[in-house]
């Protein structure tokens, strides 16, 4: 399996080259095109091997991941599938290794082969207060994970502490711990700063940030659109 990234960074397209027998599981609606010989199966929350109904729903509702995923398998000969997210921006491939998991902000996940397992990381009440969806998908196993970013990607090799806005967080390796904190001392100052709750991340590992925040963009553009029905 080979990932080829084209048209970086503004409108990146991922071309996933599959050798005979290889398969990639991708988020619903991320497929742009494929060689016609690929076999496609749609997995819902009831699909076997993905944890059953509750875990599937958990991933979808808490993780920001789509409810359904499509699996593309190269049967017969080699083939490729091209994938891209809805918004403008870059894509990246991170190799998950045994012993070093990747925690992914739900809507940043695009695709992975079956050698990588995804599970919802329940954040408890600290996630609830952050205002932004603070549910992570934990990718474990051995293999590549395709992630998307809104805007460009900043890769940070962390050794220490950093304060990160949750809307700009894409993913981080499991050697990094995090806790929810306020951007400014005191709740009111923090709220007024427009930053609300942020994450304090500490430890040693890799951190990926996106240079734009999807919900800030949604508010900036969406608020000037005509009202919709409730």
């Amino acid at each position: 399996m080979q990932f080829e990234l084209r048209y970086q960074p503004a409108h990146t397209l991922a071309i996933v080259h599959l050798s005979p027998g290889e398969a990639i599981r991708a988020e619903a609606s991320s497929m742009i095109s494929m060689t016609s010989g690929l076999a496609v199966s749609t997995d819902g929350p009831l699909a076997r091997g993905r944890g059953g109904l509750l875990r599937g729903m958990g991933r979808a509702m808490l993780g920001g991941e789509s409810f359904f995923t499509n699996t593309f398998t190269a049967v017969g000969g080699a083939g490729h599938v091209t994938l891209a997210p809805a918004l403008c921006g870059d894509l990246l491939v991170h190799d998950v290794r045994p012993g070093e998991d990747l925690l992914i902000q739900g809507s940043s996940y695009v695709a992975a082969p079956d050698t990588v397992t995804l599970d919802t990381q329940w954040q408890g009440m600290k996630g609830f207060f952050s205002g932004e969806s603070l549910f992570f998908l934990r990718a474990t196993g051995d293999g590549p994970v395709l992630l998307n970013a809104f805007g460009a990607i900043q890769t940070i090799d962390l050794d220490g502490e950093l304060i990160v806005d949750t809307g700009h967080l894409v993913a981080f390796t499991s050697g990094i711990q995090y806790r929810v904190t306020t951007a400014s001392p005191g709740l009111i100052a923090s709220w007024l700063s427009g930053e609300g709750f942020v994450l304090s991340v500490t430890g040693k590992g890799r951190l990926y940030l996106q240079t734009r925040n999807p919900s800030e963009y949604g508010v900036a553009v969406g608020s000037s659109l005509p009202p919709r029905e409730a």
Partner: protein
Amino acid sequence: MRHEILDAPNFALLKLRFDGAGEQAVAESGALVAKSAAVTVQTSLRGGLIAAAKRSVLGGESLFQNTYTAGAAGDELWLAPAAEGDLKGRVLSAGESFFLQSGAYLAHHGPELVVDTRWGGVRGFFGGLGLFLLRISGPGTVFYGSYGALHEVEVGPGGYTADTGHVVAFTEGLEYRVRPFGGAKGLFFSGEGLVCDFSGRGSVFLQTRSPASLASFLHPYRPVKARGSSE
């Protein structure tokens, strides 16, 4: 006429340079960025009301088109599509055809070039997700734009499948068929909607982002209509 594409691929701009007085280029209304002062503009319903309405309703193209006529050799015209992304030109020989997805058309030149609507799909049944095509026949040059990058794929013997929302254009010599992705279950659950299966020999041009996906992302951020509002 000479053409040059500037600022590709993210904010591509078309620059045309006329060879002599009286030479013409046609562009979709709204595409003008700038022009030499001596270039005159005439707005028309090209091909008459019925043909224009058909192109507009079925093809997603604007009802009006502007014809730009050079006042002198060396006059210039700059044109741009609406969405951020790339644009390309396709030089067609006499009798050669090229198919453009609705809305991708930007401009053309060549007095004998024909822009015709060819209804490509299953719109009535699948609620507007069909493939609406303009059939462009040479001789002449047509310019078309994409949302995001333009990705060209050569269709191999095994065929090629693409999401209809990402198909911008394709060359003649390809057969195509629109179908729900992954069967009936796929149409509702796969999130992909309709796809187009291409077979034969030729090239397909895809856009790496889709305006409909952006609209779906933004929809929840729209303000909610107040209860009892008359609007």
